């Protein structure tokens, strides 16, 4: 049993911390799972309206964001490997690239949403009111799901800023990187959810 029993006098338990993070990620997946379920059912019931709604989205911006987010997931992974090998400088620069990617993603999102608001394609807007009910559902789910995802991008970026601070303070090091790994796991979750959101919203016609 020694492998599964932590040493009690030491307060640090990296394995436990990581386990807690994975459990938390499960809950996040289930949170989005409820939305994916609702999306699936309404798409099944109203395939045409949903397809029409999908056409309205800006495929170019969506694709750019996908590339940006996937790249940022890689940079986070690189930064973890770097800190494990003691390369603090590389780790920090990779994390800053990740933050930059998060910024690019959110700015793109801002323009994408901003454009829709301009043409009245939002709950309460003029164009929105003319749409058939099922297409309104599509856009509500679009705003709800990508909005919740965007919130996660912001939270993830804040987490990474904390990681950067702790690396600068010398707390996160080559032999103490549980928080760094956990923040990385969270960032991968943000990525993973987008990988499903992107085709569901932008690609399926």
């Amino acid at each position: 049993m020694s492998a599964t029993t932590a040493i009690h006098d030491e307060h640090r338990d990296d394995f436990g911390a990581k386990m807690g993070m994975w459990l938390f990620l499960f809950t996040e997946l289930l949170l989005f799972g409820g939305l994916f379920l609702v999306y699936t059912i309404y798409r099944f019931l109203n395939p045409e309206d949903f397809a029409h709604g999908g056409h309205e989205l800006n495929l170019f911006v969506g694709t750019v964001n996908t590339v940006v987010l996937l790249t940022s997931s890689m940079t986070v992974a690189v930064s973890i490997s770097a800190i494990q090998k003691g390369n603090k400088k590389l780790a920090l620069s990779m994390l800053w690239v990740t933050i930059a990617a998060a910024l690019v993603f959110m700015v793109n999102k801002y323009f994408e949403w901003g454009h829709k608001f301009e043409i009245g394609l939002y709950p309460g807007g003029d164009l929105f009111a003319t749409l058939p009910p099922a297409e309104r559902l599509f856009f509500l789910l679009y705003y709800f799901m990508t909005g919740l995802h965007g919130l996660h991008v912001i939270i993830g970026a804040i987490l990474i800023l904390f990681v950067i601070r702790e690396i600068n303070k010398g707390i996160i090091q080559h032999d103490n990187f549980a928080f760094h790994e956990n923040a990385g796991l969270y960032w991968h979750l943000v990525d993973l959810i987008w990988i499903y959101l992107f085709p569901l919203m932008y690609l399926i016609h």
Partner: protein
Amino acid sequence: MSESITSVQHQSFYNVRPGFINWITSTDHKRIGLLYFYSISIFFFVGVVLGVLMRLELLNPGKDIMEAQTYNGIFTLHGVIMIFLFIIPGVPAVFGNFVMPLIIGAKDVSFPRINLLSWYLYVIGALFALSTLVFGDGIPDTGWTFYAPYSVKTGTNVTLAVLAAFILGFSSILTGLNFIVTIHRLRAPGMTWFKMPLFAWSLYATAWIQLLATPVIGITLLMIVAERTLGIGLFDPALGGDPILYQHLFWIYSHPAVYIMVLPAMGVVSEIIPVFSRRRIYGYKAIAFSSLAIAFVGYFVWGHHMFTSGMSGPARIIFSILTFLVAIPSGVKIFNWVATLYKGSITINPPMLYILAFIFQFMIGGLTGLVLGALATDVHVHDTYFVVAHFHYVMFGGTGFAFFGALHYWFPKIWGRMVNQKKATIAFYFMFVGFNTLYFPLFIAGMAGMPRRYYDYLPQFHNYNIISTVGSWILFVGFLFMIYNLLQSARNGEKASGNPYRALSLEWQTDSPPTVENFDKIPVVTEGPYEYKD
């Protein structure tokens, strides 16, 4: 470890860093357990008073003490408070927090700060829920299930109540997450999975349900908020939504949630029975696995809440069969507890009385649950007082009584003093008689067709309601007397030794109340917690 900690190690956790601010910023699992206990008790009392008022209103047909709309608000708030503020966090947040780290021989939970955060979330959620009484356009009147489309359309304060449930859900998730990691990582050396006390097993199973079911209700409730604030038809059929989808999503969480409510209580029963029967628990592994089985099968039975909502025939039959399957692990537990009592050297004292009442009442509640799980009979008794009686037998007669049993059982450990046995026994009998007088007639009224949640009823149900309301008075008197006795005992009771019951589990192998770090030396476990040899 710093020297200051070492020097205070032998003191009771009450004496080190006293004062209100130090309590509400403490990450000690014992203090957080007590913070939960005091806050939960307040809300429970509010819920009880609302329940007594409802019963008073139903004493006679027509108006007695309140208007119909007030009644709708009160039964909704009674449900929200009792479900989200008392029975879901009750046993795990109070006794799970206080006892679980002790019982597995740990100094604290894995994430003490997250533990404190979960209490803050609980308090914020509770204040949201209670604020619906004061602010806005009236108390929510949807029932605790917030069924759409009514919850989307009603002018009352549903948004606040729904947000409250959302926040409380997060509190519950964090507690579950903490317990899973704690049980995996912090068991005392030598405590293998099958030497772990059954209370910890039941919390473990519960924690998985909290973790995997709660996010679904969280997002569903957010959708209700979005629908109310943005005016879009996610669930409103007039705008293209599907109200049945809301019911599915709601019960995907809320059915597993009834196992969040009852499993920890079953863990309490499994702790108390062997101690006062002086016997090894019968079928340890069967009880441990039945907790996991209940948690697992419990995910797949939500449809039985919707037999009359218009699901397809095959779906209803499958949900009905699965519902019957859940009864098996529950039955396994009941048989094992009774087999433990068999030829035991039984001490009848207040904790044991509450636990025996649990078995009696939970069996009535469980068996009537099968009446509701069977398709044909459910269609007859659906949405009648039969459901109300069943639910209260399981939740109050089961979990509620186990909560009181746990309170009396761990009282010496928590407050360091013994409970006055005689007064506690009198209070118990009042509550037992009152409870059964209150809820048993409702089974018959429901069978006869009295619909639930109605403000008024037909004259032929009058007698049942008179008996029931009188029962609520007896129960309330017993409840007040129990509180009085516990308060008295906490102040003037006889000082308790570390292990007044000669129990074998680890929480009794330290001082009462425990020292700051629980154990002077982390115990090494060599045999199971129920190896009674006398």
